[in-house]
């Protein structure tokens, strides 16, 4: 395994064979290859097996509450736009418990990278359905199979105005690194949904299944046409992988649009209020 500046020694709490191990290595390599300064990165995560990721990366992190990685990430990025902020978690964390934040974070367009490990099942709580579980998927809780329509995060993100929407599969190392790097380079909100098999609780959507039921978009794929990308995002067997949509026109990020940043670029936390400004409040 390639060594990176983001490695940290210690016990890892994932099951042997978990897709997260692959992703951990790919994320560290991506950051390393982009020459990112580890002290300038913050990973914000919620709760779940995926949300443990920052524990194993040598950066700053905020490992908060279940479903709440996005609002924390948004605020960090607004307070200090100079940081590289990554919000990371699983499909249950980000699309279920944090579903409302997902919708509105896309609308806000904060300058963050959103990495969602999508294994179509709840791992930490031992095998219940997730928002992306397919209909008919049997679990100890959905005993006769899932009866809900699965959530389509890519289509949702595109319709909500996301400027960068991608999907990858951890089994495809090169694609995953390429997509993650592009997401980091993108200004504004970037969603990467990552097929990441759970070896303990999902015996249906396995490494082999993902491989069989997905394909990589060709070099000729035009990711700049929103409607075409939306149509593409609706395909589900096989699932298209790669950058489905990238807005060809750079959009202003949340921080740039906020009045407090239109007056000056200095990160919020560095500013000092003058005596004159204070006195004005009591005029």
């Amino acid at each position, binding site marked *: 395994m390639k060594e990176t500046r983001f490695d940290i020694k210690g016990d890892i709490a994932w099951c042997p064979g978990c897709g997260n191990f692959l992703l951990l290595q790919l994320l560290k390599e991506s950051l390393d290859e982009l020459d990112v300064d580890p*002290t300038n990165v913050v990973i914000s995560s919620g709760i779940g097996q995926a949300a443990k990721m920052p524990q194993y990366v040598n950066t700053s*992190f905020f490992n908060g509450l279940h479903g709440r990685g996005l609002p924390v990430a948004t605020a960090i990025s607004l*307070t200090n736009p100079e940081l590289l902020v990554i919000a990371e978690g699983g499909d249950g964390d980000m699309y279920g418990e944090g579903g*409302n934040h997902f919708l509105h974070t896309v609308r806000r367009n904060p300058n963050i990278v959103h990495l969602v490990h999508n294994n179509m099942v709840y791992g930490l709580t031992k095998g219940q359905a997730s928002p992306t579980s397919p209909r008919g998927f049997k679990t100890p809780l959905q005993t006769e199979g899932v009866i809900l329509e699965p959530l389509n995060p890519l289509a949702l993100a595109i319709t909500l105005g996301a400027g960068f929407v991608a999907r990858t599969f951890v089994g495809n190392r090169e694609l995953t690194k390429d997509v993650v790097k592009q997401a980091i380079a993108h200004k504004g909100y970037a969603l990467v949904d990552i097929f990441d098999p759970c070896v303990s609780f999902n015996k249906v959507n396995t490494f082999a299944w993902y491989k069989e039921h997905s394909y990589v978009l060709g070099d000729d794929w035009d990711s700049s046409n929103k409607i075409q990308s939306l149509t593409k995002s609706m395909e589900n067997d096989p699932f298209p992988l790669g950058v489905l949509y990238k807005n060809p026109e750079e959009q202003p990020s949340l921080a740039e649009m906020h009045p*407090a940043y239109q007056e000056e670029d200095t990160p919020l936390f560095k500013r000092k209020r003058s005596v004159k400004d204070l006195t004005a*409040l009591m005029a």
Partner: protein
Amino acid sequence: MERQSYSIVLSGEAGQGLQTIESLFIALLQKSGYHAFIAKELMSRVRGGNNTSEIRIASKRVQAFVDRIDLLIVLSKDGLDRLLDRIDENTLIIGEEDYIKSRKTDARLYPVNVKEQMEEIGSQLYTNTFFVGVLSTLFSCDENIARTLLSEQFSRKGESIVENNSKAFDFGKKAAEESNYHFSVKRDDSVKKMKAIKGFETIGIGALSGGCNFVASYPMSPATSVLVYLASHERSHSVLVEQAEDEIAAINMAIGAWYAGARAMVTTSGGGFALMTEGISLSGITETPVVVHLAQRPGPGTGLPTRTEQGDLNLALYAGHGDFPRVILAPGTWEDGVLLSHEAFEIADAYQVPVFILTDQYYLDGEGIMEKVDLSKLERTNHVVKSNASYKRYKITDSGISERAIPGQGKGFVCVDSDEHTEEGRITENAAVRQAMMDKRMRKLSAYKDIDPKIIGPKNYTTLVVGWGSPYGAIKEAVANLDDKGVAFGFFPQVYPLPSRTKEILEKAKHLILVENNASAQFGQLIRRDLGITFDTTILQYNGSPFSVEQLVARIGEVLA
């Protein structure tokens, strides 16, 4: 006749622009050298219904609601209906004839044909200014100041609007002059140097003074006014205001902002705060400071959305699972509002705990006159350190407080975890580490310096009336009116932790009276829980209204008799 104070009530519909008269009038009173206070009572309606405002004009400082109405201005046909039990033969009622005669009362009536006169000017919208003219004249306010304020208020709408308002003022002035009524209150020139202020502004000013530069919230009455105030200072004072999708996002944003180096706040009401409680617990374990402005209104559930109550002390006190320290402050005066809000940020940063500012609808929507605070003289300490390569966010220390660095500022990593964690901020299930971390967090306030209770009245009291938060003004005035040498008022700006002097202060009294605007005497429960002291008399109210001075005089007087 010269009296210590008068009470004027304006009664009209929502959407009639009462707010404009009130704010303009209180500025006029202040500049004319009168003490004044406005209490607002609103129905949960955008238009219609019946809203009333009580304006008190006094020769001494005043910040309390009274039942008595000396002068009633009726602005709508149903304006009298809900006020009948507050009207007697001493009340003077002014308004359109059919409005003021719509109900039979013992009051003196002075009909004015406002509608007709306003038609002459061209719009009924000038009615408000007409009554500014009436009031200004009846109370001998400085007319030039009144005209200046009016033209300032309306100049951006164009010259003809200013002129029409001036005409409306003249009509009102004439009506007052022809009435033969006049109200005289002794002036206090020192008021001219003070500041007319709204309750919510005190919280906003205090927050900005305390370094608040990030606010995330979801709108909810009566907390929204603070959010709106801060939004109006986004550019001038570099404060970033984000309307969150829900209160859960709001509190998590505030915590994320503090983590990255901001001084952040949420402003919310009981129902919204209920959604934030997991976030409070997150602040507790991650030791990320946070300031919560909790604007109380009557619950449970949606309750009475536009009315007042002090029913959320227990919510603030017990919010969040698990054990961790916190501080709860509650302003009584306008000055308290500014100073405690400022202090909330200092405390949160110094002790890395959640700090609450507890207000309510009555306090926030109220208006009054305050002594100016020299904000440049208040203490501001930035506790954030630069990290070195071996930085540990949760280093065990004697004080329990670990130096707080922020990401990207130094060679270290700032690793923060809502799971139980090691000194480095990594997940652990080690029992010894868990216990050491709990002990560390629980001793964080050991060096905290209390904000002492205030004793108002005789130092050698035998009876102590205890209160916190917005009833301050009514209790103070009631105790003063009772004029009993054995009775003092003990006010608690710091509600939790109970200040160390509490026991001594309470034990000095032979008789303890508690006044709270809620149904279960929540502060009384806290005092009994922590000190084993019970109150001899508990005076509560939970009908959605603030205490009036008369009610408190009667209920405290009963005990003293």
